[in-house]
């Protein structure tokens, strides 16, 4: 059902946001020689790396301060980013970091019960949120300067003097378990597919479990666990302090003085293991569903700061920028073939920032993933759609992007990337991410890099760094056995359309229908949804 709060933009945008867009000129059928001046290299592309080591992110100094003050706003934005996340969950207590952060943000302070906290924040319309990812936890806040002194007390008290109320722990634990049992497993096939892919490609790695926790992990957490965990992971040496908007020196000093009373250090940093790349696995999550959700991806050694990252990111945007109709997959699979509602690709892990189509900030990862996401497809077309995505991914490796398309996408990113930094929280987020990746002025550097790229220079990078053969697959579907058999058999996936299609499109289909899906017959697992993330 539709929900709208007072004048909430997020709620407005969640009403019925949808896009429907034209397809670009057909760019599927001419032979390569007509598509680009460069001649495709005849050599086979290099094999994907057999392992992805954990090369540590940069480590800012304790309580490093990032300030983006501007005089033309009455709003102050706070962003406290800890280099602590679900990787810090002890084994058997998966979900501890998220539950701890949530209890701190919502469960009250020593001065204020959770109800009093809500009473205090409400008339200010102040925001106070937390978000936990694999390696990072963000406490974010926004407030009008009319309320700054009072808000500063509250915002810092949630970190320095959280109430740690046992009743609130029970409430939030129950919600977290419900989020797994009723939300992830049952009501969000797309999210389930993504979580299943995470668990598959990072099997045995601290990234593998759902950030919100496992059912048994959440059940095992005690109040003492939470209290101890807060002291272990929300420490000065892991913290970057961000301030933006109506900021003055007094606020900076006051905030730093307060967070300076956090524990200086805590738990030793988690040593992330090397990921041994295992290609060709598939997990099929079985549940009642009208359609089949598809995610595919692999652990990607190329992250921000690597000279190859910008060309790779550019190419993946060409393939499918999140919820943008300009993407090749969107046009080919949705617009021209009517297979589903959208098809997207990501050069680094993507979590939609609520109310936008952009990636969240402060979800940096030491070991990134490269993924392709197909929104639910009619079960009978799931194999064809998967093959379609693979076909276009494969072409990226084999042929340069045609010059005209290349120029279009370069222009697109020059403009669209400016939209990523239009708010204080997002600008702060990028500045903080830059500290960890060692990429100062990241978006401007990206735009500069775009000016120097050519179809051939991008393709040279793709040949070396984009590996369709390394993909693993996650599906969410009702008839898992039929899908598993289709994957095992490798049989072609013919398709019929309800309307006339161009000969050019049908010619491309001839390549898609039998396209090799790189899944090993002995590496297909069927998992009932009700057992996913149980422990």
């Amino acid at each position, binding site marked *: 059902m539709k929900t709208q709060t*007072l004048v909430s933009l997020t709620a407005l945008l969640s009403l019925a*946001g949808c896009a429907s867009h034209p397809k670009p000129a057909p760019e599927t059928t001419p032979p390569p020689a007509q598509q680009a001046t460069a001649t495709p290299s005849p050599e086979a592309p290099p094999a994907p790396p057999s392992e992805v080591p954990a090369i540590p992110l940069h480590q800012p100094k304790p309580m490093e301060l990032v300030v983006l003050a501007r005089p033309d706003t009455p709003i102050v934005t706070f962003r406290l980013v800890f280099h602590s996340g679900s990787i810090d969950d002890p084994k058997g207590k998966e979900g501890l970091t998220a539950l701890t952060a949530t209890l701190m943000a919502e469960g009250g302070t020593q001065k204020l019960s959770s109800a009093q906290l809500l009473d205090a924040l409400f008339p200010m319309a102040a925001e106070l949120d937390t978000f936990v990812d694999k390696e990072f936890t963000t406490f974010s806040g926004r407030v009008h300067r009319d309320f700054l002194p009072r808000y500063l007390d509250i915002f810092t008290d949630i970190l320095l003097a959280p109430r740690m109320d046992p009743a609130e722990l029970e409430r939030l634990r129950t919600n977290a378990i419900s989020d797994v049992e009723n939300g992830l497993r049952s009501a969000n096939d797309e999210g389930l597919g993504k979580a299943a892919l995470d668990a598959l490609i990072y099997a045995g790695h601290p990234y593998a479990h759902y950030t919100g926790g496992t059912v048994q992990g959440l059940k095992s957490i005690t109040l003492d666990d939470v209290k101890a965990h807060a002291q272990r992971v929300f420490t000065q040496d892991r913290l970057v302090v961000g301030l933006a908007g109506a900021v003055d020196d007094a606020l900076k000093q006051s905030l730093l003085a307060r967070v300076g009373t956090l524990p200086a250090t805590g738990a030793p940093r988690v040593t992330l293991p090397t990921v041994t790349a295992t290609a060709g696995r598939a997990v099929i999550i079985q549940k009642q569903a009208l359609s089949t959700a598809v995610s595919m991806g692999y652990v990607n050694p190329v992250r921000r700061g690597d000279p190859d990252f910008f060309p790779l990111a550019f190419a993946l945007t060409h393939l499918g920028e999140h919820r943008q109709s300009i993407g090749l997959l969107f046009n080919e699979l*949705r617009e021209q073939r009517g297979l589903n509602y959208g098809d997207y690709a990501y050069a680094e892990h993507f979590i939609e920032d609520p109310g936008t189509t952009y990636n969240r900030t402060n979800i940096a990862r030491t070991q990134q993933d490269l993924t392709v996401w197909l929104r639910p497809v009619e079960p009978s077309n799931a194999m064809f759609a998967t093959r379609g995505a693979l076909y276009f991914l494969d072409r990226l490796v084999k042929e340069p992007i045609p010059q005209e398309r290349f120029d279009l996408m370069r222009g697109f990113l020059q403009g669209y990337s400016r939209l990523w930094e239009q*708010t204080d929280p997002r600008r702060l987020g990028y500045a903080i991410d830059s500290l960890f990746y060692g990429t100062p002025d990241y978006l401007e550097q990206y735009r500069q890099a775009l000016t120097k790229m050519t179809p051939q220079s991008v393709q040279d990078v793709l040949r070396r760094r984009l590996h369709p053969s390394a993909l693993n697959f996650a599906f969410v579907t009702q008839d898992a056995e039929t899908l598993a058999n289709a994957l095992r058999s490798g049989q072609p996936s013919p398709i019929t359309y309800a309307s006339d299609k161009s000969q050019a499109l049908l010619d491309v289909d001839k390549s898609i229908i039998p396209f090799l899906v790189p899944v090993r017959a002995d590496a297909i697992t069927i998992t009932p949804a009700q057992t996913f993330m149980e422990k």
Partner: protein
Amino acid sequence: MRRLLPLLLLLLGTALPAFAQSTSAPTQAFPYTLKTDTLPNGLTVVRVPYPSQGIVSYVTVVRVGSRNEVEPGKTGFAHFFEHMMFKGTKRHPEGERERILGAFGFDDNAFTTDDITLYYSYGPSAGLPQLIDIEADRFRNLEYSEPSFRTEALAVLGEYHKNAAAPFLKMEETLNAAAFTKHTYRHTTLGFYEDIKAMPEAYQYSRDFFQRWYTPDNTQLFIVGDFDDDQVMKLVREHYGPWDRKTSTITVPTEPPQTQPRNAHVDWPQPTQPRQVLAWHTPAAAANTNSSALQTVLVAYLVGPTSPAYKQLVLEQQLVESISSDYVDHRDPHLFTLTATLKDERHRDRVRLALLREVSKVAAGKVDAARVKAIQDNARYGALMALQTPRDVGIQLGWYAGILGTPDGLQRHLAHLAKVTPAQLSEFTKRYLQASKLTQLSLTPKVDSAGGTK
């Protein structure tokens, strides 16, 4: 050539009030200037300077939604048509919009509701001349082929399937079908599933739909950001000026008054939390009444984070995961809802009665004035906090303009919010949140012993 179905009555005349030219100064609640002009053809054009360093948002709101779908078998069409609006014209064939706007990096999207369809493009001001040209062209001269129409119908079906994974769509469908017997609010914005599946066959109807509703006098344009006003208005007049259709008028069936309580139930075949919805028929949002503001305040008063119900049911007794409302402003009388997401089926009645008790207190005049003031403060500061980008401003303005039918709808709404009194809340509750006007919806998970369905 427009082909009319018998249900339609064509009337000449503008749907929206004319603002020949006006400028509204910034206020504490809405600190931006609005320059409003109405072109001779009835198109309302609002410009809002915003210090966004070369970024602009361009929002077009058309007063058409699923409310307008009066013909049997054609539900979901306003939404489907929103998809078709991206399919090109003779001058800008399919795919060209992408190339022209994509080259600038515009975020280009739209959404449809029961009452409005809102289109937005958000990106560099440098692309405004091309954007104005291509936007005016599609609103005047949209043209698409039948194969393209049939293919897009499948994307709409995919959207329905995506949304059907969670129980909310089914809940809304069931509640609307129980609460409305005649009015087109009986179906959701997406439309009846059977009608969505039949959409590919309705090509000609889609052409008629465009002629009926995509007219200058039924449309408002908001341009927010960093741009030269004179230059923009010159281009707008040049490109939109020749647009000359007049909007149609249909008779949306009036919903007869509900005289008895109603009940509806959903068995959900997957694990989920039980839900309880209370829904009363309440008046429409309108530019000259405080109906929308009253209901907005009442939502926060009854189930907001500082409400007694929240404190008792969510925090103290922990009987529910959350309580909320799905109240959304509507052009015609719609529903005021309270929704509880239960932790356990056994507490359903206890929770339901607790919510009804809170309603009774307000109806009996027991309203906490301090809480009403806190809600008004929250609304005022919340509005300021929500306007972080030209896109935010454009969409908020477009939303209230579309629902209330006047370009200054948002400012009116904010002004009404600031004036709501405890006595008005009580009077409204007593009058409308009565047992005879109540529809209750329950949802219960029904799964097999293995915890899921085959």
